[in-house]
């Protein structure tokens, strides 16, 4: 009984102990905030990566692709195990290419990843239609009426109108030359262009902000050059921008250009060959089993991978980064632990006489040990609880805090355009919070063992005589 009372009383009367509490609190709060923000970024990144990549991908080994995708899909659908687990499939053709266009007379060229898709089936697989800027509900390569007119106008204004040369006046009885048959006007196919290709950020004059500059309007022409056939000969075609792809993953937004699959196959003289089949599962948890099944089905002719296999190095890098950061941050709590050690040693010296009194009144060595261990535990607990409260509060209001701080120091702390996030993403994982708390309390107790032992082993007479 007296142990609890003493712990509690010492906690309330020793202001030095507040320092311990504050140090534990700061450590716990920092860990929670950093973990939550990193977790938030990582979750968001995973979501986006996964959003763009289908659950499972059947891939060809090289750019020439594999033939008969329809038959392969039919084969998959006929397999009862796979059919029950697969929700949608989309054949795609992926190749590197060069994109050229004019912006106010300046030629601009960009290396891109050119992806041939069928918009309908690709939308079913997911990670496509929801990222489109204009036609989110019904993705299509058709130009909107306005875009088509704009395209026609641009092309007409660039071409000289046909005017028959003024010839000799017609001799009487001579028939005028027949009008040439109207040549079929070339209608460019639509292309969905990555948002970062079509738009660029420019710093404003005062260097404090930036504004967006649109390089490609819907209906603008782009020239795409890619490779065809076994000899990889360059081929090119004119497309008209019909939509933008904005996934908020800058790597994708600045590289991807989608064009109709059949047109790309034709352009590359590939017949029906594609480079991959994107598969969406009903339940992502089945992906391992599905991959196994597909591998037995197709053997080594194609590569079968989950989205995580494909993004393995990136995901691993994120998790390693988080692990190392956690380790480093835990050092903060360890530093708090040394603070506890120092302050506890001081408190034990200060309380030497009281320890002598307690022993004279019959308190055992173990009892005294318990008092100081309990004290450490209490400090750890109070610090951890306050730290958790502070950490969670900061995490929840991090955007408001960031805005206030930015306004106060006049510096943008979280430049939103770097990540395309409008808010700082956070993700508070209860398990992590609990682990951080447990670790902090354990460290507080661990570092109070030494002073507590010293207190417990004090000789009562010497303690009583301590000046």
């Amino acid at each position, binding site marked *: *009984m*007296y142990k*609890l*009372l*003493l712990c509690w*009383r*010492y906690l309330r*009367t020793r202001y030095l102990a507040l320092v311990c509490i504050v140090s534990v609190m700061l450590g716990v709060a920092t860990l929670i905030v950093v973990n939550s923000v990193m977790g938030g970024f990582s979750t968001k990144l995973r979501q986006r990566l996964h959003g763009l990549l289908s659950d499972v991908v059947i891939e060809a080994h090289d750019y020439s692709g594999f033939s008969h995708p329809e038959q392969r899909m039919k084969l998959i659908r006929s397999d009862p195990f796979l059919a029950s687990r697969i929700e949608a499939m989309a054949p795609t053709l992926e190749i590197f290419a060069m994109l050229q266009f004019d912006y106010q007379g300046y030629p601009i060229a960009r290396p891109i990843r050119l992806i041939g898709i069928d918009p309908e089936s690709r939308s079913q697989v997911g990670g496509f239609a929801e990222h489109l800027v204009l036609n989110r509900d019904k993705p299509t390569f058709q130009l909107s009426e306005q875009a088509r007119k704009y395209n026609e106008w641009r092309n007409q204004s660039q071409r000289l109108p046909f005017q028959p040369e003024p010839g000799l006046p017609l001799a009487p009885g001579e028939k005028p030359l027949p009008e040439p048959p109207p040549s079929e006007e070339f209608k460019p196919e639509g292309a969905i262009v990555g948002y970062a290709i079509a738009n660029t950020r420019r710093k404003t004059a005062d260097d404090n902000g930036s504004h967006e500059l649109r390089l490609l309007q819907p209906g603008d022409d782009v020239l795409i050059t890619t490779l065809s056939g076994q000899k990889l000969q360059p081929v090119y075609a004119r497309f008209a921008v019909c939509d933008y792809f904005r996934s908020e993953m800058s790597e994708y937004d600045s590289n991807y250009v989608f064009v109709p699959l059949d047109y790309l196959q034709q352009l590359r003289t590939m017949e029906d060959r594609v480079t991959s089949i994107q598969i969406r599962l009903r339940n992502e948890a089945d992906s391992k089993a599905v991959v196994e099944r597909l591998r037995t089905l197709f053997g080594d002719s194609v590569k079968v991978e989950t989205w995580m296999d494909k993004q393995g190095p990136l995901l691993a890098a994120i998790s390693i980064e988080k692990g190392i950061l956690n380790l480093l941050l835990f050092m903060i709590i360890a530093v708090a632990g040394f603070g506890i050690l120092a302050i506890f040693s001081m408190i034990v010296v200060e309380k030497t*006489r*009281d320890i*002598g*009194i*307690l*022993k*004279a*009144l*019959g*308190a*055992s*060595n173990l*009892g005294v040990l318990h008092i100081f261990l309990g004290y450490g535990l209490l400090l750890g607990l109070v610090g951890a609880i306050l730290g958790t409260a502070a950490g969670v509060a900061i995490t929840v209001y991090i955007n408001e805090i960031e805005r206030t701080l930015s306004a106060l120091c006049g510096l943008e702390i979280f430049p939103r355009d770097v990540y395309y996030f409008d808010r700082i993403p956070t993700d508070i994982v209860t398990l992590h919070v609990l682990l951080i708390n447990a670790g902090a309390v354990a460290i507080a107790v661990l570092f109070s063992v030494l002073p507590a032992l010293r207190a417990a082993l004090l*000789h*009562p*007479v010497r303690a*009583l005589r301590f000046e």
Partner: protein
Amino acid sequence: MNADFPLLVARELHKAYRKHKIEVPVLTGLDLTVWAGEFLCVVGASGSGKSTLLHLLGTLDQPDRGTILLDGERIDQATPRRRDQLRNSTFGFIFQFYHLLPEFTALENVLMPQLIRTSLWGYFWQRRKLRQRAIELLERVGLGDRLHHRPRELSGGEMQRASIARALMSEPRILFADEPTGNLDELKGREIIDLLRDLNRQQGLTIIMVTHNMDLVAPSDRVVRLTKGKVEAAPPLQMVLPPDGETVSNKQPHHPLIDPRIDPLLRKAL
């Protein structure tokens, strides 16, 4: 309580303090018998080993050699647990510097021995009774109106009274008082001694008091004088003469070495 029965017996006590290989002998073969219900004054010059003797008898420290018996039970070599138990319930201590816990009120300080003894649950069930008893004790020592004052809000005399109440809380059989008036003026010191004497007379509480102030010794007390770590064979009578010059009876004849009632006990215990 049987006044003819030796409550506490110390035989051949040796104690030395060591520092840097230099040994300072404090007690050198001390013999002492304490009878139940007596008021024993241990006097002697500074450094004669009075306090050390008190610490040894009160199990706060252990002798290098020798035997201490409480009711025939050997306590100098008892387990730490038993010694803690003895200090908690059988012995009461009051010190020169009061030694109250500064963070606790007078009432809590008095309750402390009980708090140490009982568990949280046990205290919860007995809390009314225990608090009542602590309040009664504080009233008994004249601190009924200062129950909730912290030690620093009390005067020296009041602190010593509180520490007496604390010592009485667990109904001890022996009260050890180490220079209880050493830090008080004469008047306050006299009040404290009177209080102790009342306790001895009215409740038959055995009190062993260490002091170097012979003015505090009453004619009825037994006086033991320590010199060079031993009990002097017989205290000089003039030291215990009361102011009005009456003669006093001295209870010294029961010397432990020759007392036939003690030796069988000792033999059994040894």
